[in-house]
């Protein structure tokens, strides 16, 4: 054994230096999916790998650019009624599905009905719920969606239950993509869309292979083919990247430092604005946590600077509210809760808990969350808060939080679309208690009214001001420990041209991505 250790060391060192050359490979290969998509049916896209693949195969009425702007998709433009509740979408003409079927307005209605139909077993109706009659249709109380009309083949008129200014952003989500109107039972395996890519084959748990849709209205992809490999183990994805077998890699959080400190590998790094909030939901309905002073005390107990530096190599912006700093409505000047154990103890005493409190701190088995929970436990103890860590497998932990059984729950929230509303509304509005995303069980009339009002507000400036106000309120009410916004780190091979890591997961369709042939080393 004495002779074995230097051997391993030699292997590790030499492996880090070697990078394979994949510049002659013609297929673009992605390695970011770590589990098999659920299906390729847009109506079933509730997770990231599914949404990403659906984005390659289908189009929505709108779509995201890599930097998360919303641009026209199958709708070339849209008009909004004066009261802000009726959208008239003018559809792109001359678009066909890859099986030759022409794209017409009727398919928009049929596709959205499928999303809401319980028989399809999708389960993600909420992006379409703003449409009048959508909930009734989903509940089986109506045979069509009242607020959805198709006066002719190239027009869709959508009537909302109330004005909702950011509605076009929701239509860029994969679940709102348009499918043909006669989908077979096998549609999830053999999808037909209007998107930039066509499915060649899907080897489950192995890869999905796509070829360009030559007739794509937005210009056919320039590469020969695109392969999305399913790699479950992050270290394996790193090995594939280092061997030159894949073109894009999501850097595992545990490896960030080694990439940032290596002069060669550092050149390949590309990061995206942070639209992921990592936080600890505080259940505001349980015991001492009902008292805002206790919740503030918990926030004051943690040295987030140290936590971010030591756990994620500094790749997090300290949060002071729920709105990421890259989104309008955020307040960069707001100062977050300072690490102040004395203040925390004082607040606890004021609240009537001079001897501290006992809380259950729930976490899933996700490594970073476990580390956060352990760190928190240590810090909380300094303020006299005795936290008992309860680690469960993620489905079980989430269920407990959704039922309101967890005092504190370490979790994160990714944006589905780039808007402050996507944080303010699901995470803290009382319409979304439990399964809706509000596992803080936060219910505050003033906050609710502000957020509801902001959703209806047509004027962007006024809306952003309301966002800011609601965020400020949430910050002081402290229904969560505001930890940090994580900014995802990717590595991109030097031979890849035109790839920008997308801000929203389905914002990169690879159409303009090419490879520089020949060795680039």
């Amino acid at each position, binding site marked *: 054994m004495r002779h074995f250790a230097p051997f391993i060391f030699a292997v590790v060192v030499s492996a880090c230096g070697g990078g394979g050359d994949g510049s002659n490979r013609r297929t673009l290969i992605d390695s970011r999916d770590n589990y098999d998509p659920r299906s390729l049916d847009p109506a079933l896209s509730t997770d990231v790998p599914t949404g990403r693949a659906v984005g390659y195969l289908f189009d929505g009425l709108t779509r995201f650019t890599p930097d998360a702007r919303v641009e026209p998709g199958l709708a070339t433009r849209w008009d909004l009624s004066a009261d802000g509740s009726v959208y008239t979408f003018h559809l792109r003409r001359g678009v066909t599905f890859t099986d030759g079927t022409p794209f017409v307005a009727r398919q928009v209605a049929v596709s959205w009905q499928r999303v809401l139909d*319980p028989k399809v077993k999708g389960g993600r109706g909420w992006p379409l719920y703003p449409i009048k009659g959508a909930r009734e249709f989903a509940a089986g109380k109506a045979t069509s969606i009242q607020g959805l009309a198709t006066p002719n083949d190239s027009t869709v008129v959508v009537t909302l239950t109330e004005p909702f200014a950011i509605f076009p952003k929701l239509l860029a989500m994969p679940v709102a993509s348009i499918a043909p109107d006669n989908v077979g039972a096998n549609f999830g395996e053999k999808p037909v869309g209007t998107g930039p890519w066509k499915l060649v084959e899907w080897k489950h748990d192995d890869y999905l292979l796509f070829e360009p849709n030559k007739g794509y209205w937005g210009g056919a992809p320039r590469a020969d083919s695109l392969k999305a490999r399913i790699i479950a183990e992050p270290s394996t994805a790193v090995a594939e990247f280092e061997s030159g077998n894949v073109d894009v890699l999501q850097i595992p959080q545990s490896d960030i430092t080694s990439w940032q400190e290596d002069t060669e590998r550092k050149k390949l790094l590309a990061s995206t604005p942070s639209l992921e909030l990592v936080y600890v939901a505080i259940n505001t309905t349980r015991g001492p946590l009902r008292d805002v002073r206790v919740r503030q005390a918990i926030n004051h107990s943690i040295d987030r600077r140290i936590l971010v530096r030591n756990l994620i190599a500094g790749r997090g912006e300290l949060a002071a509210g729920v709105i990421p700093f890259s989104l309008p409505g955020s307040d960069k000047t707001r100062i977050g809760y300072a690490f102040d154990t004395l203040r925390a103890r004082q607040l606890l005493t004021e609240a009537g808990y001079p001897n501290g409190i006992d809380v259950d701190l729930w976490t899933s088995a996700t490594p970073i969350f476990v580390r956060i929970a352990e760190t928190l436990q240590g810090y909380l103890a300094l303020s006299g808060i005795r936290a008992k860590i309860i680690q469960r497998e993620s489905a079980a932990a989430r269920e407990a939080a959704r039922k309101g059984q967890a005092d504190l729950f370490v979790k994160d929230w990714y944006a*589905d679309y780039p808007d402050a509303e996507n944080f303010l509304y699901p995470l803290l509005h009382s319409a979304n208690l439990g399964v809706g995303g509000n596992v803080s069980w936060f219910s505050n009339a003033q906050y609710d009214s502000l957020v509801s009002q902001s959703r209806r507000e047509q004027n962007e400036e006024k809306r952003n001001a309301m966002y800011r106000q609601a965020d400020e309120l949430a910050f002081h009410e402290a229904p969560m420990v505001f930890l940090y916004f994580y900014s995802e780190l990717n590595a991109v091979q030097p031979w890849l041209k035109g790839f920008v890591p997308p801000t929203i997961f389905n914002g990169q369709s690879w159409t303009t991505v090419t490879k520089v042939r020949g060795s680039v080393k």
Partner: protein
Amino acid sequence: MGAFILRRLLFSIPTLFGVLVVAFLLLYVAPGDPVQAMVGERADEATIARLRAELHLDDPLPVQFGHYLAGIVKGDLGKSYITNRPIRNDIIERFPKTLQLAGAAMFLATVLGVTLGVVSGSRPGSVIDRFGLGIAYLGISFPVYWVGLLLILLFAMTLHWLPPSGFGGIRYLILPALALGMRSIAFLARMTRSAMLEALGADYIRTARAKGVRETVIVSRHALRNALIPIITVLGLDFGAYLTGSILTETIFSWPGLGRYVVNAIARRDLPAIQGSVLFLSAVFVLVNLITDVAYAKADPRVTYG
């Protein structure tokens, strides 16, 4: 022998029924709801209630079990809650890959493990024996996960001899088979060595030597044949285990087999997928055990089944 096999097959039916009941009940007792996994991070109670009704999750347990059993009897394992695909198709797609990996691992284990054991056992105390013992210790002590990553580091990243992961030709099979088979290689080497030592000290070997039989023949025909029973036991048990649980190896090497399928199904609380694969894998395990028992009789004429 035919009657024996038939009887064993009949006996396996209650065993599998037991597996079915336990798998069914455990999942309903365990926390975590399949519908919650289906709807993702953001949902509403009405949708969840509708999906539960659609999937008959609100029916009384005996009714649900009855439906499930009726399907099984007709050879229908049901459809996945999450993907809507028939479980049968999923198993048919993945099991051959798991079989291939387990088969390759067992092949390596048999060839390398038995050879190492025979060579070590016939020359106890020699350099090669000590080398063999060393390998065996390492193989048994190292976790599969670590061995797998190390193999990728050495053979894929440093030497560029083999691809790090994925499914394809024989080049893709070598590393995962080695990682998976490592423990069996080690275990078999030790097992074979001690069985050989025991056999080589027996009276009939002395007799064979006395009548002038060549040493190679003594080792390969007389001693090894008698050492086979424990070897077959280990092979059978390990093969059964590999067929049903090479989850870590499949994960590290992105091998699209049944192990990863089951883990994903569990993470998403995909009840029909979990139940279907557990039932299928139990049947495989029962079958492998049966084959092992039949092999005993072939290896040792003293073993008879009535």
